[in-house]
């Protein structure tokens, strides 16, 4: 699908969470324990989503994929940065514009056992968005959506409750709910990772049809690169809240440039019995997402580490001279002529233009 117009523009998006937002902690804090700490879940992410495009977000657990996805559908208010939809900056959007956005942005969640209200029937679940937006012809639309999701005959499912359905059927209901408003784009957060392996193919082909027949743009979140390769036009690889590599899927899979992407592609997914899904395991520990290290966030796991420049200068995500994709790594020459070594000699850590100075050195 090759609509070229930009549907959604994510502009230096940041989402930081206060550590320990629980009430006990906030009570302790109210007795004066000084400045709260922040988890830098998403820390300056920029990308575009074009019409009809499928964009994959990949990365290890905790790198901020879900937080990015949730910010895209406005489940989080960004700490900084903005999202531009249809020429409107969401931070400045009027109520009517937000309502319009809500009609066009939907999300499919990871866990089909948690994403349906156990006390609501399939019909009510799928009809709910229509009722919220006062859209007519409720029954016909719900029926269409369920039929599209291959829940046939649709009437048979109307009065069923989630506990009467299998995981695959539930995820199909969730997909029908996301599609019933005829949205412009959908964020699908690991939509099959909780499903039985035998059911995955069915749901995946449904998601495939969804992009084809609706002309939808999709942000597809997964840690499974082989799956993303199959589903996506473009990929963005995330590490510790930042995108480290971004570009056409084939380029990235066949010719990965960032040391992290290379490690990720070489790693074999191993089943994780605790979570009931597979996860990627790499050497070493993910860095501290509260006290962000200086320089490159991947530096203490990187096999290509090239010294002080990695330690001191944050590598910006930029076009490089030798390949198509954007990479955030000092190994490659910037296409724009940016020279990280200049930053080192000058003031120590004013790395990115317009970016606040990175916080204190990490304890690694």
């Amino acid at each position, binding site marked *: 699908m090759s609509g070229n117009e930009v549907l959604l523009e994510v502009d230096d998006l940041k989402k930081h969470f206060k550590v320990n937002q629980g009430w006990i902690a906030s009570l302790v804090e109210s007795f004066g324990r000084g400045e709260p700490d922040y988890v830098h879940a998403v820390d300056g992410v920029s990308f575009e989503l074009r019409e009809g495009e499928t964009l994959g977000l990949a990365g290890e657990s905790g790198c901020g994929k879900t937080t990015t996805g949730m910010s895209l559908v406005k489940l989080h208010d960004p700490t900084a940065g903005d999202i531009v939809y249809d020429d409107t900056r969401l931070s400045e959007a009027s109520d009517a514009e937000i309502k319009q956005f*809500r009609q066009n942005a939907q999300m499919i969640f990871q866990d089909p056992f*948690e*994403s349906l209200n156990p006390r*609501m029937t399939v019909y009510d679940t799928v009809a709910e968005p229509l009722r*919220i937006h006062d859209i007519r*012809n409720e029954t016909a639309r719900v029926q269409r959506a369920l039929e599209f999701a291959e829940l046939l005959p649709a009437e048979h499912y109307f009065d069923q409750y989630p506990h009467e359905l299998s995981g695959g059927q539930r995820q199909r209901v969730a997909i029908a709910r996301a599609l019933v*408003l005829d949205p412009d784009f959908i964020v699908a957060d690991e939509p099959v990772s909780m499903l039985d392996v035998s059911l995955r193919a069915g749901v995946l082909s449904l998601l495939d049809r969804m992009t084809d027949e609706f002309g939808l743009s999709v942000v597809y979140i997964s840690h499974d690169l082989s799956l993303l390769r199959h589903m996506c036009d473009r990929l963005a690889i995330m590490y510790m809240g930042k995108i480290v590599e971004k570009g056409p899927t084939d380029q990235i899979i066949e010719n990965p440039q960032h040391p992290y992407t290379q490690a990720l592609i070489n790693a074999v997914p191993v089943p994780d019995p605790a979570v009931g899904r597979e996860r990627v395991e790499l050497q070493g520990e993910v860095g501290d997402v509260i006290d962000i290290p200086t320089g490159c966030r991947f530096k203490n796991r990187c096999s290509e580490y090239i010294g002080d420049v990695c330690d001191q200068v944050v590598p910006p995500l930029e076009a490089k001279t030798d390949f198509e994709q954007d990479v955030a790594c000092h190994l490659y020459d910037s296409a724009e002529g940016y020279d990280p070594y200049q930053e080192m000699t000058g003031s120590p850590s004013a790395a990115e233009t317009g970016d606040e100075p990175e916080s204190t050195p990490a304890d690694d």
Partner: protein
Amino acid sequence: MAQEEQSTRSIYTDLDDSTDEEINKWERTFRLWRETLKEHWGMLTDELSVKLSMLTVAGFMLIAIFAPFIATHQPLQRQFQGDAGIIQDKWAEPSLLGGDTEYLLGTTAEGFDIFSQLVYGTRAALLVGLIAAFFTAGIGTLVGLVAGYYGGKVDDALMRIVDFLYGMPLLPTVIVLVAVLGPDLWNIILALIILQWRSTARVIRSQSLSLRERPFVKAAEVAGAGDWHIISRHLAPNVLPMTFLYGSFGIAWAILAEAGISFIGLGDPNTVSWGTMLQASRAYSALSFGAWWWFVPPGICIGLLVISGFLIGRGYEEITNPKIQ
């Protein structure tokens, strides 16, 4: 069907939105509610102890409703001997035990018919139990939902009130309230409500706190649902079983509390309750007169109703426990 839709880029474009055929919402909602209730009712009455408890409560309810027809005398009318009616009929032996009187359970030291008092006492007990439980469960649920959903300052403020109420002990509070407002059954109910909603509120709040983070609530948010929509459609139906649970425990608790309050003499002197019966029997030393029929029947009634309430609550707890799905 895929082929024809490919070009339209939507599967809804051919829908004729000028007609608006919809299934009758109210009828459907009503039917679904009925099915849910039926299902819960079925699960509840599956258990023998719950079934017996329900029968007990139902029996007491019938007695309360038809009290004037069941009672043989006015509960607060002194009985006199013979037609002349000169000598008050005190300490009469129950005719049930072969006493040569017209009183099923005898009379009190004040000359009141014990059986009739017992029958009318059912009214007071159920009145206190049902009304107090209804309001405590209702207020507690509402406060818990709001506190849990909004969190932050709203939550803090509401939970401070709950903490404050947790600091108030039952009897001293009732004494103060009754002293200020007067010893009236309604004031006792009021005091019980004030003291009782706190526990429901706490439990419902913690449930709402975790519910609001669940993906199905997020999905509603993404669809554009407002606060009230989420509270009423997504949170409330999921905490409702807990509300019922606390409600049925609340009935038992309120009846017990009213009996206790009356027993120590803070009851409403113009209302007959099982508690005031116990209190009077103690005041007149019924035990040393061997008139056990004065205090044993109300004691049994209190026990039966309270145990029934708890058993129904327990039975419901099993339904409320998250189903292993």
